[in-house]
């Protein structure tokens, strides 16, 4: 199949083993391709490094979420007991901080957990019901048994014939063109 009128999304190479994909990813990064991604049925150790991915911002987002949760928790109780409805019970202080810790702790965890899940989904741009790669016939195997490497057409270095030859030199099972 050659490029028709439809725009090309990229070239998709299929591998049978995780190790083959790892090696291919390393060589693709060395060859200078930037806009590329791999698709695997489970997280493959070392693949993010082989693809040259940057460190994720997710841990920072989770930290901020947890801090926000904790501040909301403590602030809520401080506001309630010190400003909103202070009660003098036998002269005990309204700002009874040790008793505020459990709720603060729980909301810290809640804030962190919500940030972890929604941060992960947000950074991954999910939910995203459709993606051009789903057009590729064998792509469902990426959730089952096979390993795929895609070099996208938007990469500055992408040139159909040459990139195809490069991918074929990595000894995949096959290379297919995926339309946008």
């Amino acid at each position: 199949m050659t490029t028709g009128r439809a725009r090309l999304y990229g070239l998709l190479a299929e591998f049978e083993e995780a190790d083959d994909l790892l090696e291919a990813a390393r060589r693709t990064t060395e060859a200078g391709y930037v806009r590329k991604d791999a698709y695997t049925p489970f997280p493959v150790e070392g693949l993010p490094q082989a693809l040259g991915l940057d460190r994720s911002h997710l841990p920072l987002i989770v930290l901020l979420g947890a801090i926000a949760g904790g501040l909301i928790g403590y602030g809520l109780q401080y506001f309630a007991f010190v400003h909103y409805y202070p009660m003098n019970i036998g002269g005990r202080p309204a700002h009874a901080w040790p008793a505020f810790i459990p709720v603060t702790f729980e909301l810290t965890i809640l804030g962190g957990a919500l940030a972890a899940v929604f941060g992960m989904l947000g950074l991954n741009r999910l939910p995203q019901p459709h993606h051009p790669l789903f057009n590729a016939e064998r792509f469902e195997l990426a959730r089952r048994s096979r390993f795929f490497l895609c070099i996208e057409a938007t990469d500055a270095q992408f040139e159909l014939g040459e990139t195809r030859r490069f991918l074929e030199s990595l000894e995949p099972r096959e290379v297919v063109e995926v339309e946008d």
Partner: protein
Amino acid sequence: MTTPRTKAKLPPILEPGYTYASATEKIGSIVLEGSTSTRWYVGFGIALSLTMLLLVSVTYLLVRGVGIWGLNMPVAWGFAIVNFVWWIGIGHAGTLISAILLLFRQEWRTSINRFAEAMTLFAVACAGMFPLLHLGRPWLFYWLLPYPSPTKLLPQFQSPLVWDVFAVSTYATVSLLFWFVGLVPDLATLRDRANSHFARLVYGFLAMGWRGSALHWYRYEIAYLLLAGLATPLVISVHTVVSLDFSVAIVPGWHSTIFPPYFVAGAIFSGFAMVLTLAIPLRAVYHLEDFITARHLDNMAKILLATGLIVAYGYMMETFMAWYSGSPYESYVMHNREGGYYAPYYWALMLANVATPQLLWFRKVRASAAGLFVIALVVNVGMWLERFIIVVTSLQRDFMPSAWHVFVPTFWDWATFVGSIGLFLTLLFLFVRFLPMISIFEMRELIEETTEAGTPGKGTAR
């Protein structure tokens, strides 16, 4: 130190010979096969009828009030609180397996974490129901939450009962998130494999367009690990807060510093008993012995034994402190437990929770699925009795003999409790029919890790 001899004896955590595709097929087909077995319908039917009993009991409760239960002063905390603590404790094993064992890199957790997490969710749902029903006017449940009301009244943040509201609702939310995040890649697999349009639509909606991108996996793993790190202190805090409901009160038999660790250990003890109770029939019915191997049962039995010993230490310390404290009220509660109206239950509890787990010292017992199943059932009953003894015997005869009273559960107490078991089982039956009960992508990862490097064919079979 492990010697090669003992290591060779251990059964594998995954039977060899599986490829990525065949493991996917085996677990996925339980969900995707068109016809539902008669056995499933029978089991589901029984569970659903018990759920109907729960609906009837709750309706009658809403109409008549908590007077239909056997509650009367001074025993104001009856079955509702016993069941609450029992259910929430059961939930803790799921989080322990999914979070704590993940942090400790215990690979064997992989085949049991999914349904253990589902068990957690359903147990927390059953648990959360009881304090609300116990409120008397459950439709005013929102009074438990801080919200701006015309009366300016807010919850008393210094009360463990309010901490409980925050702890349990956070626990329920985080457990749901953790479980759902774990499911997303498997939902994508089901979306790709489903035959019917409707199934593809539903799984596709829930999978959110997951495509297995390496970049996505990278963030996914970070999120999953951080969630595990957050869930670990959370699970310990939840049962600690539950125990503070008791130990902050000055009631003899409750006012004790051993309560938090003893409750957390008891929660894990009862939870692992429930995981075994569910895992043993499930692996037999769905032929999952290759994934949930003898090694898993052995490991879970060892955790059951270890936590059982901590619980036994808790009982011992309670008895010791009753004498050592020199408080006549404390020692009377202990005498009352051992020789009073509820003594048969106390001794049944000792038999179930202290004596029975000692059988797990024997390798032969740990290797027998049927034996473990019976022991797990006995521990489930024992842990329920433990909460009954703690709640009821302490309240039944406290400071003033003029207020002493014997608590006798009514039909509606039992109906609500049995009904909640029905709800739990109904949800579980639906779960095993519609969602993969073993994490498929983690099994593929395990195949990758356990197969010798260089062995061909892991990915070759389509």
